[in-house]
Each structure stands twice: as structure tokens, then as C-alpha cells.
């Protein structure tokens, strides 16, 4: 069976504004973020620093602050901001109406980070 290119992971309203939810995938957890102005982003739920769950961080602007050691990660690129460097893998995600669709290729087992 071939997987569709995009998979529906839930509704836009199921994620609080300036918040995040987790999608468990074969290649590990993915954090889906919703910003204050309604943007949706997806990153691997692992801070490039010590693997902290970014989904649990505080979302501000288009960034999230890791709950473990306060690294600030760009939601747009997955890159650590400021003086820190490292990247939380970015996962293609899009909105179709009020549904959140995630790239299947990016989350399959072979795509494991």
C-alpha cells in the first residue's frame, strides 16, 4: 500500500494559540506549533541542544523556548537562535481549511532523524 503524500493529523482548533501538540510518528515525535497569528509549523520534538521536548516550551513570535535549558528555536527553520547553533528538523506541514496536514514522506521510518 502506498501512503498518501499528506496525512491529516488534526484540527487547527485542537492546538491552543501560542501552543503546541505532539504527533507520534514512526520516526519519532513531531511537535506542531500554532503561533499567536495563526501560523502552523512542525519540527522534530527534540531540541538540538539536549533533546528537550520543544512541544512543551513557551511559543512566542515565530519561536519556541525549550523547556529544559531555554534555547530559542525558530519555528520557521528549526535553527537555534542567538548565539546557540543547531537545528531541530523541520517537517513540511500545511493547513487545508481547518485541517492540519503533515508530509508523510518526512515522517516515515526511513525519514528518521
Amino acid at each position, binding site marked *: 500500500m502506498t501512503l498518501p503524500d499528506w496525512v491529516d493529523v488534526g484540527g487547527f482548533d485542537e492546538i491552543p494559540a501560542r501552543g503546541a501538540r505532539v504527533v507520534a510518528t514512526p520516526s519519532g515525535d513531531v511537535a506542531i506549533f500554532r503561533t499567536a497569528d495563526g501560523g502552523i509549523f512542525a519540527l522534530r520534538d527534540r531540541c538540538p541542544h539536549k533533546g528537550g521536548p520543544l512541544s*512543551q516550551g*513557551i511559543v512566542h513570535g515565530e519561536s519556541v523556548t525549550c523547556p529544559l535549558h531555554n534555547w530559542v528555536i525558530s519555528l520557521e527553520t528549526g535553527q537555534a537562535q542567538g548565539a546557540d547553533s543547531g537545528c531541530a528538523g523541520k517537517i513540511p506541514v500545511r493547513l487545508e481549511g481547518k485541517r492540519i496536514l503533515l508530509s508523510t514522506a518526512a515522517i516515515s521510518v526511513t525519514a528518521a532523524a
Partner: protein
Amino acid sequence: MKQRLVVIGNGMAPGRALDRLFEQAPDAFDVTIFNAEPRVNYDRIMLSPVLSGEKSFDQIVIHGDGWYVKHGVMLYKGCKITKIDRAARTVTGANGIGAAYDRLIVATGSVPIILPVPGHDLAGVLTYRDLDDVEAMLLAARSRGNAVVIGGGLLGLEAAAGLREQGMNVTIVHLMPTLMERQLDPAAGYLLRKAIEARGIPVLTKASTKAILGTRKVEAVELADGTVLPADLVVMAVGIRPNAALAKDAGLVVNKGIVVDDTMRTSDPDIFGLGECAEANGACYGLVAPLYDMANVVAAQLLGDEKARFRPAATATKLKVTGIDLFSAGDFEDGKDREEIVLRDAARAVYKRIVLKDDRIVGVVLYGDTADGAWFFDLLKKQADVSEMRERLIFGPAYAGGGPLDPMAAVAALPDDAEICGCNGISKGKIVAAIAKQGLTSLDAVRTHTKASASCGTCTGLVEQLLKGALGDAYKAVTVQAMCPCTELGHDEVRRLIVARKLKSIPAVLHELEWKSSCGCAKCRPALNYYLMATWPGDYEDDSQSRYINERVHANIQKDGTYSVVPRMWGGVTNSTELRAIADVVDKFKIPTVKVTGGQRIDMLGVKKEDLPAVWADLSAVGMVSGHAYGKALRTVKTCVGTEWCRFGVQDSTRLGIRIEKFMWGSWTPAKVKMAVSGCPRNCAEATCKDVGVICVDSGYEIHFAGASGLEIKGTEILTRVKTEDEALEMIVALVQSYREQGRYLERIHKWAKRVGVETIRRQIVDDSERRETLFDRFVFAQSFSQNDPWAERAAGHDAHEFRPLADLTLVAGE
């Protein structure tokens, strides 16, 4: 025609004089040098490293053959001058070679003293003076036999260490009670002796040599007390005397050495005396610094600078034995008019002594840690008044540098590897380099790039000083520390404006106070959420997206992303039902670790996030509630068993603790609040290092606050004493409410108290009863909105989205 300058001797002092001469007037003189040693000018001070094998002769040469060619100097190697004819103005050597002079420098140095004991002329008895001596010692050392060094001064010790390094069994025989007694005081001499002996070199002090035994060559050394030390090599290093015989034969005035005036001229104005052979102001010198000073004067005088004068200055000594750090300078005899500062660290074998006279350093002895030697010596030479920094003087320039009022200088004096930020292990060098390289201009930027001062913040002052040092006046310390990069406003202004402008939501604050970012950041949002909640209880709706994850899900995130759960145990008291419920939960959810906390409760660690609501449901079922171990909130009230069980208890501390906890739990505070109640002054509940503590006394209750036992350790301050439990509760509640209203977010009670002032707090809480009552009432009002168990609410389904994934795609892939 050029003047003819003849130099007898080719040691370091004449070498320096010629250097100076050629620098200033390369063509003024035709120079001829007669050197009794068959070689060029070398650094005699470095003979010890040659002996020990650390350096080769080539490495200690000062003027190689090329130097003599370059400057057109005629150098006779191995040519000893035997006669000076002052009338004819000529010098003549043993082999008939000679030269005529216009000016003559006599720099014949010194000769080692040979003790006139029987056997002193046996083969194998050496002195320690020049390279020939070193080569003879190295040859003798090949036998790996026994060596005796007579003399425990600088040279003797260096010779002994070098021979030991070459594999000989060495014994030091020293006449005086302590080693290097001319440079060291007895305490440093003792440490030195221990260090020498630790290298396997026995030291015999107060030992007088009676005879050197042997038939053709040396076999042993006999001491006055009858001891006989077997020896294949004897090195005499008991001192030097000026080599003035040639000058004396020439009719120059000679006392101990060749007498010179302060222009370095002998009794014949065309003849200079220079170096160890010269006697100036009645003294002869053996250390290099004053000899170089003499050389500078000779050069200046030769060039016509008649004002040049030799002024003897204090000298400093360093022992050149690898691994032994020793520095001595000036004069360190005890005296009525002298004071001393001594630092001893026996474990590190460090000894430092500074001798002061009239607030000026006259002597310094450093053993073990000589890093500051140059600095002390500089103060000594300058005769600087040290009264301002006297208290810290002994700790060196890093601490004493600029006097008590100038912390800048103290920081500036720190070495580059000095650690500034202990939390993140950041050195001064790293910070300074980052400031320069990245062009940082603010504390925040330094924090971002280096992490220095980004953790506990105790080093903030030091970091600011480094910024100031690097940027000078360009660095403007923000007098009010901004809350975060989103605003220029400090915490206090933001709080004030929230009240004054009746701002009741985070977007209202961001808009009205002109935040620079669209929705704040992870620093300001939690603070604003707290301020709004504390200011407008009941009115303000908690913004959970502006809380740290721990407070959002009411559990403590662990490094692997699991959580820990700590239920309240009121006053640290529990029972079988609660324990059974905990045990069941641990089994049911396979919780890996159960740990008793420092606050008298039980921590379950490693709970999966999705299990949290179910865990809480089971705990709620027996009446247990959240312990807020995750929050900026009231944590624990630790108690002892008080009058209920303890034979010393004077009040029911357990009951009071439980009462306080039940009254105050659920309240949010700027930072965590830990309390304790001890039933008697023995203080088993350790109440005197808590944010708020109570010590029960016969007459009632002593209320304490502002203790700390984390990053900082600090005993509490006493707020007041009261007679009844009710009064104690009122005081504590008013105190905490005052802290809730005035404290900056993340500022613990002791820091708040330090900022606001303990006296001010006492006045507001204790003396002003009206204010106390209002504070109490405001706390009670706020509690009516916050004493809901967050666990029970979530077990019942509140915020369910927090605890489960949005979707689980792992099964899809498995299909």
C-alpha cells in the same frame, strides 16, 4: 681616531655595558675584550638548567661569535690578563698578548670561596662558577655515585638539584640552621627544606665541614660532629669573593672588591670597575639586576653622560629549580618598626610574607606560589604606600589591586583564566574575547553569546565590569535592568503600570507598554502572567501558554521528558492510606523511582506525561492534592514533631505547620516559597535557612524570614516574636502577601528583603498593624480563587489536550 676601549672579562655585566654602548654610539670605540674563559658571553644564571639537562650551552649564549664580528670587537678567548700598566695604559696577558687602552673596564668577576679544610685540593672537589665547573660535574655525574654539596644557598641548592637530576645521590651540608638564610626567613627555609628532601636530597643543617677525605681523589666528607659522608664528588658552593687581585697589583684602591664611586670609576678615572669584582658604597653585588644597573652607568659615562649614577636598589631572587617556586626580595629581618603580613596554606605548601615599614613594603618572601612576585617587587621598588590595600595586599594584585573602592581594577587584574561565571564555567578571557570579537555592548548580549551571568546571575557585577573595562565610557550600564529584550522597562515599573493603567491581560500590557516583540518572550510572559494574576485575582484569567511547562501541566519535567509527581503531605505528616495509594500508583503506572524529598514528602519520578491525569485521579481518590513542587508557589512547610511527641518541644510545631500549609497552599508567588516550623530552638526542622521559618519558644513563636540554602546560603532574619498561633499565622500571611506584591518574578524572599530592606519590611508588617491586616485580607481574597486542586481538575478532564498527542501515526505505518 677612535678611542680604544679594553675590557678585561667577558661576563654578563660587561656584555650589557657593550650592548648599551653600541646601541647609542656604534662607532665611538674600538673594543677589545680579554676573556679568561675560552668562550663567548653566556648567561651564567642559566648554568643550573644546563647542569640539570634542561638546557644546552647554545641556548644560554648571550652574544654569539657573530655579535663580535658585527660590532668589530676583538675578542681574545682563553686569554687571562696578568698585568695592567697604568702609566703606559696597556694590559698584558700570560701569553704575551696585550693591548693599549684609552679607557679600561675591569670586570674580572668573582672567585668561588674554597673552604681551607684538609683535602680541599683533592681531585673531585669542584666549585660552581662557570661552564667548566658544570662540564666537570656532568662528567662526574656519569658515575651515578655520591655527591656532597657544601653550602645551602642559591647556588648550592641549584647544583644539588641538578646533580640529583643527573642521577647522583646528593647530600647537602649547610652550616646555618636554615637553607638560603640570606634570602629566606626560617619558615620559608623550612618549606624549602621539605621540598628538597622530598626530591630525595637529604639536608644536613648546622653542619660544619671538618675535612675532605681521600688519597688521590675525593672519597668522603667528614663533618665536625664526626659524621662521614661518602662522596665521589664534592661541590663547594659556600660563597664568592670579588676577584680584585689584578686591580690591586695595578695599584687601584681595593677593599673587599675594587672600590668604585657612583660613576663606577675606580681610583683611576680612566678605569671602570664593573660587576661582581666592584665594590660600590661599601657593598659588592652578586645578583644580575644591580650588575646590569652598573653596566648601564658605565656605558652612559663612557658616552659622556656625567650625570649617570649607580644607585643600589633592592634585588629579587628566584630559585631556578624546576618545581620549586621561591621568590625573595628586599629585607625581611624582624624589627620593632616593622610589621608583617603572613599567609600560610600548609596543604598547598604556600607561604607568603610581606614585611612592611611605614606602610611600605621592604621585604617579600614567597614560597610555593610566586606568581605575584613581580607585582610585590614593583611596589617595593617604587616604595608605594600600601596602606589603602593593606587588608588584601597578601592576596596579590587580583584582589588588592586598586584599593577597596575600585572593583574595576580588581577585575582588570584577574588573569584571563580566572573563572567569572561558576554556573557555566566561563573564564574572563572568554568573555573579554567575545566582547571584542562579536562587538558586544550589553550585558544581555554577553549572556547570549557566552552564557556568562545567564544562570544564577551572581557574577552579573563582574561581567558588567568587564564590559566597562572593554568599552570604557561607551558602556552605559542600564540603571534599571530591563525585564527582557522585549522592553526597556524594569520589573517594578511594569508592575506599577499594570496597577496604574489597570492593565488586565498580557496583550493589554504588550500594547500599552509598547513591547518591542509581537507576543513577548519566554522571559517576560511568565512574569507578566504572575504580575497580572497577583494584581487582579479573580479578574485576570490565567494564561497557561505563558507558564513554564511545569506549571502548565502541574508536574516537574525531567531531563528525558517524563515528569515527577509530588503530592502534598501536610506538615510532612502522612498515614497508611496515603502511603498505600502512593504504593498502588507506583505499581499501576510502573513508576521507576520513588524518592523522599528534602521537604518531607514523596516524589514519584519518571511518570509518562499521558499517565499524569490518571495518576492524579488515583491520588485524589484518597484526598491527596498537588504539592506544587513544580511551581513558583508555596512548596512545603517542614515541621518537627513538637510538643506532641518530643520531650523538648515547647509548642505544637506540627499543628502550626499544617495550619500554615492548609491556609496558604495554592497561592502563586514570585518564586518558590519554602517554610518550616521548629518546635523548640534546637530547630530540627531547620527553619532558620528557609524563606519563612518559625522557631517555637516558651513564650510563643519567633518568626523568621529571608533565609536561603540553595545557590546562596544565608541564615534568616528575625521578623518578630508573637505569643499565639493566630498572630503567627497573621504575620506570616501578611509577610508573604507583601512579597507577592513587591517581589520581582523569580526573586526569592531573601533577595527581595535585601532589595527592599529588612527594616522596611519589619516596619510594614510588624509595626503597621493596619497595613498588616489589609495585606492579610488581600491574601485571603486571592486564595478564594486559587485553592482549587489543579490535579483534581485535570483528572476530571481539564486541559486534556496537554496530556495526549494530537495524533498517533505510529500504527498507520505498522499497517
